[in-house]
């Protein structure tokens, strides 16, 4: 056996245990969840009996007719959209400012990244208190109280307990989006910063000699170079957003008429409060499909090039 072959064999056997574990704990378990989602296990007694009765896609059909789940899907869509836009927008903006290497920019960089180190549960608890509306107009609380003190009372509103919406977009999601952007925008900023710093200095200098303005340099040179980073950031933030749970659980719960409800919250409730294991599994599989639609093409393109 050649050295090369020996090495390849060793490589395979090193990976094998991990493959087996991932095979069981990811792929086989997903299969089991799919199986549960097509069963009649919608009560504790059905589970105890353990008799598997196949009901086809009934649990899925019911979910799509369920107004709460419909709300959840819309909420996920809008939350993801604004969470992404917020993180990418603020991240890119701040990265460009920090990149000017002003005095103290290291301090700002660290500060903006700080929230990353903290659990969503902590974040949710604190922001939940800040955005608690109080009994308007007489007893404002949190940020509403701050508005009052600053003479901005007209900006007071019900925040995450508001039941107003624009089309399908529940306004109550705004404070949740703010909290999520607060947490993750620093991360995106750091990614862009690394990207900016990797752009060869000569490139910028050359275009400056050619008389390009700052704006032109930004759009014509920097942005195209940063495109892979934008893609990475969107993948990371996007898949996080599709399965968001902790932040909502700690901050708002599902809210009045489920204005801040998400599939993950509904799934948790179905599984652990209502004993509807089959319905809960169906929600989980729908969540998985949403993530897969984003991730599989990404993985495919990432690994297609390198053999």
């Amino acid at each position: 056996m050649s050295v090369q072959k020996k090495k390849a064999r060793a490589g395979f056997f090193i990976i094998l245990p991990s493959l087996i574990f991932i095979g069981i704990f990811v792929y086989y378990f997903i299969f089991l969840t799919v199986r549960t989602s097509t069963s009649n296990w919608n009560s504790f007694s059905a589970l105890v009996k353990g008799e598997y009765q196949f009901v086809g896609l009934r649990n899925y059909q019911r979910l799509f007719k369920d107004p709460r789940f419909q709300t959840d899907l819309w909420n996920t869509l809008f939350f993801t959209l604004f969470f992404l836009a917020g993180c990418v927008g603020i991240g890119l903006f701040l990265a460009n400012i920090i990149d000017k290497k002003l005095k103290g920019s290291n301090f700002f960089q660290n500060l903006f990244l700080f929230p990353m180190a903290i659990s969503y549960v902590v974040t949710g608890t604190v922001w939940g208190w800040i955005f608690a509306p109080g009994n308007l107009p007489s007893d404002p609380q949190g940020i509403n109280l701050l508005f009052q003190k600053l003479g901005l009372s007209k900006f007071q509103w019900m925040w995450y307990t508001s039941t107003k919406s624009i089309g399908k977009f529940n306004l109550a999601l705004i404070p949740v989006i703010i909290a999520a952007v607060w947490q993750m925008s620093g991360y995106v900023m750091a990614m862009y910063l690394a990207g900016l710093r990797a752009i060869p200095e000569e490139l910028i200098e050359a275009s400056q000699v050619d008389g390009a303005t700052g704006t032109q340099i930004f759009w014509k040179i920097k942005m195209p170079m940063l495109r892979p980073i934008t893609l990475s950031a969107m993948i990371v933030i996007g898949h996080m957003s599709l399965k968001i749970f902790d932040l909502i659980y700690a901050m708002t719960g599902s809210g009045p008429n489920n204005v801040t409800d998400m599939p993950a919250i509904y799934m948790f409730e179905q599984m652990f409060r209502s004993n509807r294991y089959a319905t809960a599994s169906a929600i989980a599989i729908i969540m998985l499909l949403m993530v897969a639609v984003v991730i599989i093409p990404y993985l495919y393109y990432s690994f297609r090039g390198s053999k």
Partner: protein
Amino acid sequence: MAEKASKTSTIVYYIILIIFTIFYILPFYVTLSTSFKPFEEVSIATMWNLPKKPSLQGFKTAYRKLQPNLKNSFYLTIPATLISAMIGSINGFALSKLKFRYSNFLFALILFGMFIPYQSVLFPLIQFFQKTGLYGTIPALIITHVIYGIPITTLMFKNYYEEIPDELIEAASVDGANVWQSYTKILLPISIPGFVVVIIWQFTNIWNEFLFAVTITSDPTKQPITVALVNLAGSQVVQWNVQMAGALLAALPTLIVYIILGRYFVRGLLAGSVKG
């Protein structure tokens, strides 16, 4: 990429930075000032004020209530972090230096495990632990985090080792080192920065994790700090000073890690994205 900024634009930049600083600091301010207030002083109306008589009462109560859970979190996070870092390092070595047929495809299969919503494996996982009698224990959580940590740690180490020239390994094998020796003698000693990055990343993630924690442990004496913190609010009257002090306690270990090793933290973040 510093461009020369004019004076006015410098001022504008600072103003922007300060506005964002206020936004980022706001929750820290509320948390800190509330946690140092005595219970009598905690009221909605004075939420934005600094404490008049700073007191450690909130911290004392929070510590008394959360101390067992803090311990649980350490018992859980430290072994899970170390084990998953080890596995990631060996895997990363294999996938970067010992490439075999389909290794990229198999790697992609492993990597997919990092993106799945864990809800989609939750029910079988719980049943698995119930059958093995591990349900509700810290070891169950350790196993969970180690296994679902394989994709990310493998990815980070693979990226790290790919920067290291193959010639180093080849030279060693010419000198008669076998595969294991070339890993322990050549690669491992220069892996320290990689380990730091992975350990920080895993430590933060496992420490902060909530879904597995809340579903795999239901006995409060076994629960990690994140779950205990949420439950703190769930009982009777919410004592906000205790709640906020508890939030700080829960965040403290990761914040300390971050302050001391912040540079690596940034690197870890970047290594965590699939490809730059």
